[in-house]
């Protein structure tokens, strides 16, 4: 089973996770820029975080045979802190980088006027830089937040096939299916979605425009939930081709709209140097 995890925060995970993910079939992933649990208070913290997403993290992933890409944005939670707002001025340079395959995570957290503004501005950036968009739907007041997100997307002029609304569930999937946008589902140990409910949604809505992710981060989460969902699909009678479509071809199609995906096996960075492996050395 080959797996592309379209949403996972590897900065918060260990090398053990990379090893287990590779064993489970993960060969590529997208790490969306989001908050880090502790709110940031200055633009400099974002610069270092963004630099890691296009620097150290892809290097780390490559050592374990996994292709790392990312999305960039000012997330809705921190959009509410005026000290973080100047991050918007940094984005145009980051949105040109090779490994950046979408604008995201944008959207709503508490549905404030500040979030409205920052959301709309970043959808305009996506149009300017010709990138797809990853929209985070809020945890609180989710149905209303999803409805409003769809309205903002419609007003932006972005074609729906270039937008994914993420963290959907039984209540919000229908309106997104009807909008023509892509549907993202985060499979979690005890919140958001679980793998059996995911299988039920796939039965009802089919496999087209569906993205399944682990959204694993610093909270209680599991980077192997993509694999578990694939296993649950097979157990429920879906074919291997269905699983391949949901867990590989769909994310490739969605993020491939950026023209910046790299999917051949990464060279161990050590092979740049005549077959010496970086893994053999002791960290300096």
């Amino acid at each position, binding site marked *: 089973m080959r797996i592309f995890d379209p949403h996972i925060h590897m900065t918060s995970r260990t090398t053990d996770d990379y090893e287990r993910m590779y064993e489970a079939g993960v060969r590529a992933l997208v790490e969306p820029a989001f908050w880090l649990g502790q709110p940031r208070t200055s633009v400099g913290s974002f610069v270092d975080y963004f630099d890691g997403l296009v*620097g150290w993290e892809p290097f780390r992933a490559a050592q374990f045979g996994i292709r790392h890409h990312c999305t960039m944005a000012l997330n809705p939670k921190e959009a509410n802190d005026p000290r973080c707002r100047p991050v918007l001025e940094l984005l145009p340079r980051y949105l*040109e980088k*090779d490994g950046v395959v979408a604008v995201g995570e944008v959207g709503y957290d508490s549905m404030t006027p500040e979030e409205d503004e920052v959301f709309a501005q970043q959808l305009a950036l996506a149009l300017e830089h010709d990138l797809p968009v990853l929209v985070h739907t809020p945890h609180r007041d989710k149905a209303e937040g999803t409805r409003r997100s769809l309205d903002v997307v419609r007003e932006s002029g972005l074609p729906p096939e270039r937008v994914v609304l993420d963290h959907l569930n039984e209540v919000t999937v229908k309106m997104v299916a009807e909008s023509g946008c892509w549907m993202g589902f985060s499979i979690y140990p005890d919140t958001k979605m679980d793998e059996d409910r995911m299988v039920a949604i796939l039965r009802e809505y089919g496999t087209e425009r569906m993205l399944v992710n682990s959204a694993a981060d610093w909270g209680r989460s599991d980077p192997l939930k993509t694999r578990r969902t694939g296993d649950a699909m097979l157990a429920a009678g879906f074919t291997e081709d269905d699983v391949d479509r949901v867990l590989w071809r769909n994310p490739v199609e969605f993020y491939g709209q950026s023209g910046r995906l790299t999917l051949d096996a990464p060279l161990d*960075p050590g092979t*740049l*140097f*005549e077959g010496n492996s970086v893994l053999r050395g002791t960290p300096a």
Partner: protein
Amino acid sequence: MTREEVRAELAAALEPALTAEASAWLADARKRIAGDADAAAVLLPAAGRRCGRDPRPLSVGDAASGGLPWTVEDAARVLMLLELPCTGDALAARLDDLYWHGDANERRAVLRSLDALGAEVGDAALPLLNDALRTNDTRLVAAALGRYGAERLPAHNWRQAVLKCVFVGVPLSVVAGLDDRADGELTRMMTDYARERTAAGRDVPADVARFLEVR
């Protein structure tokens, strides 16, 4: 070696490795940067996806060859940097901006460009080398140890950098000027390192053994 010499060699080595489309894109990008240094901020990041990422080493002439092999991506970016229409302090400031706003591959290209641009910027780019050498990213550590680093890094920093190569798995063959600059202090550091490995029951890396053998 001068900007012009390196530029001619890299262009000649790169041309057969590019598709017609990539070649046209690169020619246009170089022209735009030569006309307006600001264009580099948008064009430099795109070089990988436009020119290709074939990792096989290109064969270059003497002026451009150092210890580190040239890939299509590195050569394309360095060629673009060698078009920057400025020199001296203005060039140093421009390289600084492109490094600090660059992803790891762009930073690597800025570091590699210094072998040809070092004579124009003097010591002004040393802070970039020190940043690269603070990382554990082998792509950056290796690129910081070209001719510019060999000529300008203070002795202590340079020795620490060479030892770091051994730690993170960058082969010593990529360190420019190793034989000329290696001194008694570096030999002592390598000897101590070999002793530490042996005491722990671990292998001494082949590079360290080779280094000590000839001293």
